[in-house]
């Protein structure tokens, strides 16, 4: 049966219940920066979290042609790194789930390096990606915190890679501060990424650093068994049932957590930018 959707949603293919539709022409809508956990002082957070940069609203203005605007208006959410190889910017939106069903996250995104040189610059962005940060409900036997990560490794120190990757392993979970109430682990480091099977994909960089072409992303994940289902970027769909997300024992105050996050990492001494035009999260009806 064909569903009638508002025209702004027509480029999405949501499941039955739409949880949130974020069009950044309406503001940040709950998307914010990611701060590391701390106790008593910000100095207590893990050092990898100290320089994560927060998201902003952008009208995609570039020096040579002025304002691009977003896909549906003027504004997109922009993540901008520091100009230092390996620097990251992360945006996160925090919800909780009310029924363990399939969840589908669709978004329209694009990425570019800062156009500070008149060069192709197509390997200046290292990676961009999305992740969910989930936890089982409080009645689940042997509950887990589960963190499915997918990234597009555009390039690394060795050059162009153009490879989708996922992450199954995690670093040590540290106690933060001295009261044993706060824990933290850094999950966006360069370690632990594995190539997605058949996950090589060439995207539309489009020749110079000031041209923005938007991409469609879709991640399907199932909260019932906390497993990947599918991932799609434009014309390519990846079967993900056999890949494992990060899975760690449940934490004491994260029950039914449903966090969405996206990130970008630079590969050079230039800022890397990830723009999100819009995002839609849907689930099955329970």
């Amino acid at each position: 049966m064909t569903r009638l959707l508002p025209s702004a949603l027509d480029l999405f293919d949501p499941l039955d219940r739409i949880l949130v539709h974020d069009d950044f022409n309406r503001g940040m809508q709950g998307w914010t920066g990611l701060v590391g956990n701390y106790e008593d002082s910000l100095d207590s957070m893990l050092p990898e979290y100290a320089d994560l940069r927060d998201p902003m609203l952008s009208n995609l203005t570039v020096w040579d042609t002025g304002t691009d605007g977003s896909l549906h208006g003027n504004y997109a959410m922009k993540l901008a790194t520091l100009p230092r190889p390996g620097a990251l910017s992360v945006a996160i939106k925090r919800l909780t789930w009310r029924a363990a069903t399939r969840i589908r996250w669709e978004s329209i995104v694009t990425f570019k390096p800062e156009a500070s040189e008149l060069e192709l610059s197509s390997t200046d962005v290292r990676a961009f990606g999305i992740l969910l940060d989930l936890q089982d409900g409080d009645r689940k036997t042997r509950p887990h915190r589960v963190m499915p990560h997918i990234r597009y490794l555009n390039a690394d120190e060795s050059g162009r890679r153009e490879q989708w990757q996922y992450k199954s392993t995690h670093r040590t979970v540290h106690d933060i501060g001295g009261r044993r109430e706060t824990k933290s682990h850094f999950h966006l480091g360069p370690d632990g990424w594995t190539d997605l099977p058949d996950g090589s994909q060439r995207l539309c960089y489009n020749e110079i650093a000031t041209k923005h072409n938007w991409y469609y992303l879709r991640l399907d994940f199932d909260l019932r068994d906390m497993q990947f289902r599918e991932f799609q970027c434009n014309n390519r769909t990846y079967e993900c049932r056999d890949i494992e997300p990060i899975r760690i024992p449940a934490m004491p105050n994260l029950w039914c957590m449903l966090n969405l996050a996206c990130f970008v990492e630079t590969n050079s001494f230039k800022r890397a930018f990830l723009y999100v035009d819009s995002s839609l999260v849907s689930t099955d009806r329970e």
Partner: protein
Amino acid sequence: MRQSHTAVVARNAVWDGPFTTEPWEAAWAAEAIYFIRLLNPAPFRVSMQCRVEISPDGIHWVELSRSAFDFDGENPLWYMQLNHFGGWLRLSGQVSCVPEFMDRMGDLRFMAYLTLKS
């Protein structure tokens, strides 16, 4: 209802001399306030000279206005109100103190906020 947003443009920053905040896009906003807060007020005076800079592209910068402020135990928070700034803002400047306390500047931590309203 008007749009508003507070951005943290420096978090727990160690400023011991010159500093520059990252570029921030503000094309949607009509007014702004930069705040700087000294997180752990020092038992000595910390002097700041700073410039608000604007840009057509986030790459090339020009001064919009300037300010000076002395932080101490009684005055841990500075602000500057702005309007008509176009699409981009950043803050750059310098912090210093008298020579006898210079070796303690690295203990100071700064928060910088950009509060925007349409």
